[in-house]
């Protein structure tokens, strides 16, 4: 049954996409009228709708036949930036060349995007993640689930571009605009040239490959220059970063190799001179290292909350100064991730790219993240925790960090529409859905 439902939804979605792609607005009206007249004119003695039906059939058939003769021959080259930001329109150019023998008039350029329909596994997984808040009819039909998944997978949209009249052999530069709706990897799978038939009912569409991707980074909010609390901490083993500054990598002395010393500490020249393996000793390293914790554990239907959480995390990742300190991004996906940037190690772009792809983690529990954070507790100077709730496990994590003298800035995303309290008594800062930008702007 579930499989049948999936197939029906998939087929319906595909058919609608085909109709939207192939039929102009006038054509879609004709299709609707065709269906209505078919029903009304079923009995030719009861109404005259069968006459409308045959006329509309003839019209649609002629338009489809005429469109067959309007195929385009062309080459196209896309000049696309690597990154975009959710919510920020991204203009780019396409160089189109008419390689056919006829002059183009009234043609439109369309970007073909990756199929946003979810796979069977995703559809099934989304069902198991559904909670009891859904109406039984919604659960039974699965349409809202389908729509939600399609929306989540539709990263961006590109409006059609009207092309100027183009004689054979001529080329032009078309300006397209990509409007990213959400973060993620956006795949442009090809380019089509469309032209409606002379009556403007059916589109002739010629498609060429040309896959290209653009990474849509998370939406970011202005957070000023956050002053994160915390002092420098001893970093056991130091850091072997290329452009270390301050006390890091300070040479103290040479000594004989002892089992367990890392190989990178061996001083090869001294070994050559003395004939014995020698190792360098460095001064212990102390520096500021902040953690940015992203909560990825949420119930179904709360994707908007998660998106805002990612945006908040991205806002901090992009704003924290990392010349003098390190920033660890901690979250749980299919495993626990810890990405460190700062002091020349990696860049903020890398962290934003990771955040662009982070997904909710429905199958695991918050304790995994808690464990991972607490393991790194001794290294942390301070911590920003972006949380999706303030239940017991989350409160425990904050308490445990505070008990270890790690200053914490807990930011809890709440949805007032779901009845979540916009004010907190546990010292956390609540960011209301829909007012997150104002919330983070007010942060101390």
């Amino acid at each position, binding site marked *: 049954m579930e499989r049948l439902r999936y197939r029906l939804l998939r087929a319906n979605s595909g058919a609608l996409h085909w109709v939207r792609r192939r039929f102009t*607005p*006038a054509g879609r*009206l004709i299709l*609707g*009228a065709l269906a*209505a*007249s078919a029903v*009304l*004119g079923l*009995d*030719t*003695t*009861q*109404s*005259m*709708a*069968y*006459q*409308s*039906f*045959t*006329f*509309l*059939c*003839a*019209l649609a*058939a*002629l*338009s489809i036949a*005429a469109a067959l003769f309007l195929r385009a021959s062309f080459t196209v080259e896309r000049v696309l930036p690597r990154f975009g930001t959710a919510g920020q329109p991204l203009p780019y150019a396409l160089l189109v060349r008419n390689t056919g023998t006829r002059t183009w*008039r*009234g043609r439109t350029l369309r970007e073909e995007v990756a199929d946003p329909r979810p796979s069977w596994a995703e559809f099934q997984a989304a069902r198991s993640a559904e909670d009891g808040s859904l109406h039984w009819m919604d659960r039974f039909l699965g349409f809202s689930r389908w729509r939600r998944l399609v929306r989540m997978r539709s990263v961006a949209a590109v409006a059609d571009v009207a092309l100027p009249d183009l004689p054979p052999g001529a080329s032009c530069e078309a300006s397209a605009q990509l409007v990213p709706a959400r973060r993620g990897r956006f795949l442009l799978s090809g380019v089509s040239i469309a032209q*409606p*038939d*002379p*009556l*403007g*009912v059916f589109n002739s569409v010629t498609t060429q490959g040309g896959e290209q991707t653009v990474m849509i980074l998370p939406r970011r909010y202005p957070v000023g220059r956050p002053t994160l609390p915390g002092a420098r901490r001893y970093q056991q083993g130091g850091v072997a970063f290329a452009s270390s500054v301050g006390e890091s990598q300070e040479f103290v002395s040479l000594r004989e190799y002892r089992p367990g010393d890392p190989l990178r500490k061996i001083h090869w020249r001294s070994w050559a001179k003395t004939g014995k393996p020698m190792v360098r000793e460095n001064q212990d390293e102390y520096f500021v290292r902040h953690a940015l914790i992203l909560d990825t554990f949420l119930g179904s239907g709360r994707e908007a909350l998660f998106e805002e959480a990612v945006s908040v995390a991205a806002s901090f990742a992009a704003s924290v100064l990392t010349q003098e300190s390190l920033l660890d991004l901690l979250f749980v996906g299919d495993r626990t991730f810890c990405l460190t940037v700062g002091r020349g190690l990696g860049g903020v772009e890398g962290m934003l790219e990771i955040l662009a792809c982070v997904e909710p983690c429905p199958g695991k529990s918050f304790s995994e993240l808690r464990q991972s954070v607490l393991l790194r507790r001794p290294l942390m100077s301070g911590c920003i925790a972006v949380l999706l709730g303030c239940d017991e496990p989350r409160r425990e994590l904050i308490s445990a960090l505070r008990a270890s003298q790690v200053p914490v800035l807990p930011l809890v995303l709440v949805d007032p529409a779901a009845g979540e309290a916009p004010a907190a008594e546990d010292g956390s800062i609540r960011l209301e859905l829909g007012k997150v930008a104002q919330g983070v702007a007010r942060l101390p």
Partner: protein
Amino acid sequence: MSAPPLLLGAAILFWGWQTSLSVLAVPLALGLEAVLRLRLRRELSEKDFFRLSDACTLLFVGLVVYAYATRTMSLAIISIVSWIPLCYYPQLLAQKLSGRDGLPGGAFFWFLRRRPSPEDPARTDLSFPFFLLCILSGAAANRRTPAFYAGMFALACWALWSAKPRARDLQAAGMLILAGAVGFAGQSGLFRLQAFLEREAPAFVFGSVEVAADPFQSQTAIGRIGAIKQSDAIALRVVPERGERPPKLLRQASYDVYRNTRWSGAEAGPSPLAGPGPDGSWELAPGAVETKRVRISQFLRKGEGLLALPPGTWRVAGLAAGSVGRSRLGAVSVQYGPPLAAIEAFHAPGASGDAPATARDLSVPPGSAALLKGLAGELGLDPRQTREALDRTAAFFQERFRYSTFQKERLLRADPLEDFLLRTRSGHCEYFATAGTLLLRAAGIPARYATGYSVQEYSRIEGAYIARQRHAHAWVLVQEGGVWRDFDPTPSTWAQEESKGSPWWSPVRDFGSWVRYRLALLRGGGLPGPGQVSRWALLALLAGVIWAARRRLALKRNADGARGTPRPQPGLDSDLYRVEAAFAARGWGRNVSESWGGWERRLSQDRGPLIGELPVLIALHEKYRFDPAGLTPAERGELRAGAERLLSALA
């Protein structure tokens, strides 16, 4: 994509013409075009659209109820489709009055009202959907003239031409003409195809034993192979007088000529009866003294059909029909009757006016004559002792034959009747009635083949006897002592056999049937019928809805006399514009897209001493233009005075 001028008005007129509602269509078309031409505008909020949508929905529901209450189901559906443009016209008018591109999604779907969000889909323009609605509604009126196709084609061409791409006019014109020609040929072909299928399909599809609704002929299922599936639907309701039993058989028609498994009636055309009387009564034969009465209700398709009547019916009362005819063979046909004929039949033995026996009532098919005569001789059927002959015939079929609705394969090239009499000895009522009729004729007793219904089931829900489709029956009419009497040779087990196939959901369907029957009785019981009056009722209803909507919408006329821009724009009379013009006259005007602030900064760099209190005036101007609260009178005076001072300084 917007509708070209006059197209919507023309579509409304076309609809009115087709549906004979021109009296409504003309003012509606004029009203809409007046709004479009004169650019009349009203400010309507989203909530106003929602309310209007609710009013239109109510209007639609009202029309549905009205149509169902006053018309038969099929006519009601067609009427509703014909009137739909009336229901959505107020919404279209409101859209045009508001000057917006379309209606919000919430006007069509309740759930969208509860979830207003910026992600709402774009507004839906009603223009072209309404245009199509007018054409389809016009089609539902079913005025069978070539004018419909011509009008529809012209309107479609007009609409398509306005929406087509700018190039390839010649090709587009050619395609339209070709589509028109192909469509016309297609509609003619489609009509013929349906006629062909209706004519020929029954020959291919073997369905139920349909008791004749045709006084001229009855095609029997004799000789067909397989099972006969009969419907369980209720066909008749019979209420006898208190304490009386209902008649066992209700006859619809009788036939006197048998050829190739088909019975037909010679000279069976109905003769019109005089009437009706004051109580809707029709006299079928001279009255009788010992009369019984029985109330029979049956649905008539399109108000036409044959009445199922007890033997000896001489009078029918309560039948409001345009015409009632009676054939020589006793079939009573109704024309221009009600959808439900709830009649009272007065009957007495031997009172009916069936024509006396002729030579046709004694004829047997030449191919079967020898067999039938031999059989009649074997049974000892004597035409002088009709009663005894009937008893022997009944016993013959009762003892040696079996009732069955299933026929196995029969011998090739064998006459099916012969096969029945000699080999299978099993069949349904048509076999028995046909064989009985021909056997009696072979013995010299005048006989006819009769069709109708057998009444044998009492329904507690209905409080009446009922006859289902599967109770459709065939039997023999025998002339005995100058009077035609019913003789049923089918073995008495036939009713039990028939009831075996009754589905488990039969009670549910019976209940639905009873509800439909009661509603039909109500409809036939004094509610107003369709007619000229309905037009004025619709007009009054529509006017009422628009008036109610107008009051609720609390329409506000624009300050500028309801013409021009759709929304008032405060602050357009700001004195700062005069200042700007004065600066522009000196070559220091504000650039296109330059903000007031940017202009002021540029001026302060180049013409510092000249700008004076320009920043203050700009602040007041922006408050005047964009602050919903506007300026106080004092601030307005300050703006005016400051502008004057600056102008005089400039001068």
